[in-house]
Each structure stands twice: as structure tokens, then as C-alpha cells.
């Protein structure tokens, strides 16, 4: 279980985290999304005992990450957003090294390494040098490395970044397996649809603050009062887009081939008022439908600051 309460962190005058409060129950996968510089990596590195906090507290399984870092390290597996591997070591030696770093007896290394390589589907790379592995394989090996000491909590900072679709799918599958193993996983990603598939809950960070948090279904279906509306009109599309761009509650408008797709924040009544206004203004509306929102839409809805028709 991860409990973050009022966590803050500043780098000079820049506030990387502002009063972040978050609880992740045991066995859940929590996705942290947000634009670059939102504070995801800072929050994760504080949890990974790599940085001090400016204020507030962060607990992993009831242990304070600042005052009891050694105990916390035994409980977490951390995969940073950018990481390297050691030259001149085979995959087996690499994992065995980290097993030793967690004081796992040497006589258990052989079986442990084989099991981990099997979990991440790298059995055939047992004796390959890690610096010769592809990026996707290195990511999977790093995931295996996080698991050498069988931690209860995994902190994965952008584990699928820079990977091709196949490699991303493989990483996603491993995270699913970790979930089935009962691990508590905090994962960040820019590949938003992937998070929606594997996470129980998601949180959206913006400028160091958590602006939305909850179950994926709640976030994507307008639980945060934001939804995606698709409008089709017979003609007069440019004028309509110009018109709804200034309408209260409209956060972002995208022009499509036959109409517009907009992110709207407001009650259902306000949504109805928008439709009424379009009809009264004489736009020939063929379709006005609330779409089942994606995490990306919710992300854009919550983090979008300006209105645009790009």
C-alpha cells in the first residue's frame, strides 16, 4: 500500500510537487499521467527513496520513505524513466548481481534468475551480454531486475517509453502478470490508452498537483465532469466551430471531416443548453452524441488550458 499525504518538493523556485495526496491500496495498479514536468518522476523518486521531500509524508506499507529508507528499499522495485545497463555482463550475471545486492543467498540465484527470465520471456538471452540486447529486451530485463527481491510494491516510471508497439504490448503484458501476482504497482506513462487497459485507478498530475484521481471508468466516462461530444452538421461547419469555441464549458474543439469533436466540462443540463443554442442559431445538426471517453480525452480535458480548434 502506498500513502502519500501533502507531499511537496521544490527545486529552487520551481515547485515540482504541491500538496500531493494519494492512496494506492495493496494489489492495485495505479497509473500516473501528466504532461512533461508535471511532477510524476519527482513523486516516484521520492517514493523510491532517491530524494527528500520538501514537506508532507510518503509511506510504503506503513514505512516512511524518508526516515526508514533501508526498510522501504526492501519492499520496492524501482524502474526509472531512463536507465542504463552494465557493459560486459550477461543477462544472468546482471540479475545475479542485483540478487546479491538484495542479499539473496547465492545458491538461490540460479533458479531465481531462470524464473525471472522466463517471466519476462528472455530465457534464450540467459548468456547474452546485456549491452547487446534490444531496447525492448533491456526494458523487460529491467522489469525482471525490479523483481529479484520479490517486492510488494513496484514503481515503474514510463516503462514503455521509446518502445515499438510490439515491445510495448510485451511490457503491458508483464504488468498485467504483476497485477495477477498481487503486486501494488505505481506506473507512469505517456501512452495513455495503455494505462487505461492495465490500471485500476489513474491520477492526472498537472504542475505538481493531482487534478483528477479515481477508477479508470470514472475518469474516462466523465466522472470528473468532462466528456467528449461528437457533433455533425450538414453545412456551416467553420462558423459553428467558431461559435462553440467561446461557449462556456467547452475546453477543446477538434475539427473532423463531417463535424467537430469537443471536450466539454459541465452538467448534463449545460450540455443540453449547448445543443439548444446550436439549433437556435440555425446550424443543421445531424448528430450530437456523447462519446465513451478515452483516458486521453480525460487527460486533455483536465490538463487543457486553452481552447483550440486544431
Amino acid at each position, binding site marked *: 500500500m502506498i500513502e502519500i499525504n501533502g507531499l511537496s518538493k521544490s*527545486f529552487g523556485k520551481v515547485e515540482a510537487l504541491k500538496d500531493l495526496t494519494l492512496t494506492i491500496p495493496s494489489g492495485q495498479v495505479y497509473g500516473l499521467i501528466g504532461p512533461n514536468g508535471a511532477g510524476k518522476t519527482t513523486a516516484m*523518486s521520492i517514493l*523510491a*527513496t*532517491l*530524494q*527528500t521531500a520538501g514537506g508532507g509524508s510518503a509511506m510504503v506499507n506503513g514505512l516512511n520513505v*524518508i526516515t526508514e*529508507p*533501508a526498510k522501504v*528499499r*526492501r519492499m*520496492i522495485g*524501482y*524502474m*526509472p524513466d*531512463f*536507465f*542504463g*545497463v*552494465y*557493459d*560486459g*555482463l550477461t543477462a544472468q*550475471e546482471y540479475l545475479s*548481481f*542485483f540478487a*546479491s*545486492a*538484495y*542479499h539473496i543467498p547465492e545458491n538461490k540465484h540460479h533458479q531465481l534468475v531462470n524464473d525471472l527470465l522466463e517471466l519476462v520471456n528472455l530465457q534464450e538471452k540467459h548468456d547474452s551480454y546485456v549491452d547487446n540486447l534490444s531496447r525492448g529486451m533491456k526494458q523487460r530485463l*529491467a522489469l525482471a*531486475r525490479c523483481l529479484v*527481491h520479490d517486492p510488494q510494491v513496484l514503481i515503474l516510471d514510463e516503462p514503455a517509453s521509446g518502445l515499438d508497439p510490439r515491445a510495448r504490448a510485451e511490457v503491458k503484458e508483464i504488468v498485467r502478470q504483476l497485477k495477477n501476482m498481487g503486486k501494488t504497482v505505481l506506473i507512469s506513462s505517456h501512452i495513455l490508452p495503455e494505462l487505461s487497459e492495465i490500471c485500476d485507478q489513474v491520477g492526472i498530475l498537472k504542475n505538481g498537483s493531482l487534478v483528477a484521481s479515481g477508477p479508470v471508468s470514472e475518469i474516462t466516462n466523465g466522472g470528473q465532469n468532462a466528456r467528449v461530444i461528437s457533433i455533425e452538421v450538414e453545412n456551416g461547419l467553420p462558423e459553428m466551430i467558431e461559435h462553440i469555441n467561446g461557449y462556456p464549458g467547452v475546453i477543446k474543439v477538434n475539427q473532423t471531416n463531417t463535424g467537430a469533436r469537443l471536450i466539454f466540462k459541465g452538467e448534463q443540463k449545460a450540455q443540453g443548453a449547448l445543443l439548444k443554442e446550436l439549433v437556435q442559431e440555425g446550424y443543421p445538426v445531424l448528430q450530437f452524441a456523447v462519446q465513451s471517453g478515452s483516458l486521453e480525452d480525460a487527460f486533455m480535458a483536465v490538463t487543457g488550458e486553452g481552447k483550440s480548434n486544431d
Partner: protein
Amino acid sequence: MINTNPVLLKELRQRFRSFKASLILFIYLLVIGGFVLGFMYLNWRQEAVVFNPSQSREIFAMLSVAQLILLGFVTPGLTAGSISGERERQTLNVLLTTELRPAGIIFSKMISSCAFTILLITATLPLFSIVLMYGGVSPSQLWGVFGFYLVSMYLFAAVGMACSTFFRRTGISTVTSYGITAFIGAGTVFLAAFIYEVSRGNVYPRPEGVPLSVQFLVDINPVVVLMRILGEGPPFGVSENWLLPYWLVYTVFYLVVGTLLLIWSSKRLNPLRRSKL
């Protein structure tokens, strides 16, 4: 710790497995061997029939100084990238989230670098044996020189480790390490000369004795100490033995300095003692 520390095992494995290790050893022996054998060849050309023991002593002195200079280059070069290199390769954060303690990481990396340097020194023993074969140098002097090398290596390695922990970039760390090593090797004796000259002033007759600072700087200068082990007298008229024998001053001072640098490096490596990684 030596048998169980995983960082040490990994470092030794990586270091000794690489082609670079063999290449450095080859170049090191080539340079040192070139000095000795070249010098012997020049002497042999002049006097082909006999080999004078005093010449053997000269070779020994030259070999010892050459080895010291090479140690001054190789040791900081090996250690100055040990922590900053982990940072540049983006492997340090992962290492710091394991159960390994920063002190263990620092000492293991230093020991692995020193192990390689000791290999370099040991590999030159056959060259030193040529000198011993012709006489002119006592075995105690030889052991004294090797003990001196170990102390100097410890200091140079600790300087490299401290710079590597302090600076984020290996390039800056290496240049700074060499700068500090150069100051220890040459700067201390220049500073001693300066203080000595200033202290004498322009009065005549010149006052007897030298300031304690000059005595101390001379006692901690590696080149001067090495020459004194080889039988040369101290410069600037400093006394042969001050409060302690010169070699003991050198050994104690640099073991203390080296240890303090390593403790400082360990504290600095602890991520929760720093505000920013």
C-alpha cells in the same frame, strides 16, 4: 566484504574481462620496460664489459620515479569515473535503491580500481628484479618503495573517488583529480620552496632551521619521499626525521586524508543527504 560485496565482484568481472584492461597493462609495461631496457642499452653501449652497481641504482631510481608518475596518471584515471560513470550511464539510481550501502559501493569500487593498479605494479616486478640481479639496491629499499606505492595509490584513488562523487561529469572529475594529484606531486614541493625562500628573507647571516610548514610539506611530497627512500637527502636543509620518521609522517597523513575523503564520498553518495540527484 571482499568476498561477498556484489559491487566488488561485478567491478572485478567487468574490469578484468575487458580488452581495455589487457591493453592498459600492455602499454604500462611497454612504457616502464622501455625506460629500463632503453637505459640499460645506452649504458651497455658505453661499457659493454661490466655493469656498474651504481648504474643499477640509477635505473632503480628512474624506474621508481617513472612508476610513481604512471601511478599518478593511472589511479585517478581509474577511480575518477567510478561514480560519475554510473551517473552518466544512468545506473546509479537503480544501484542506490538496492540494499547496498553507499560506503560499500564506494569502498568496493575503490578496491577494484586499486586491484587493477596493484596488478600493474606487480607486473613490473620482473623489471625491478633486473635491478636487484645487478646489485646496488637492498631488498628493504625495494619493499619500502612498494609500501610507498600502496600508500600513494590509496591517496590517489581516494582523491579520484571523491572527485567522482562530487562532480556529475567524468571529464571534469578526471581533470580535477589530475589537478589535485599534480598539486600533491609537485605543488607541495613548490609551496615548500616558496615558504622557505620567504622565511629566509633578506637578512644575513641566513637564520638556521626551516619553518615547520616547509618540513611538513617536504615530508608529504611523494617525489621527495620516494627519493629519500632511495637514499637521497631531504631538500631545503630540513631535518631527516621530524616528530616522526619522514615515511611515517607521509603514511599516517595520507592514510588519514584518504580515509576522510572516502568517508565524505560515502556520505555524499547517500541520496537522502542530497537535495537533488
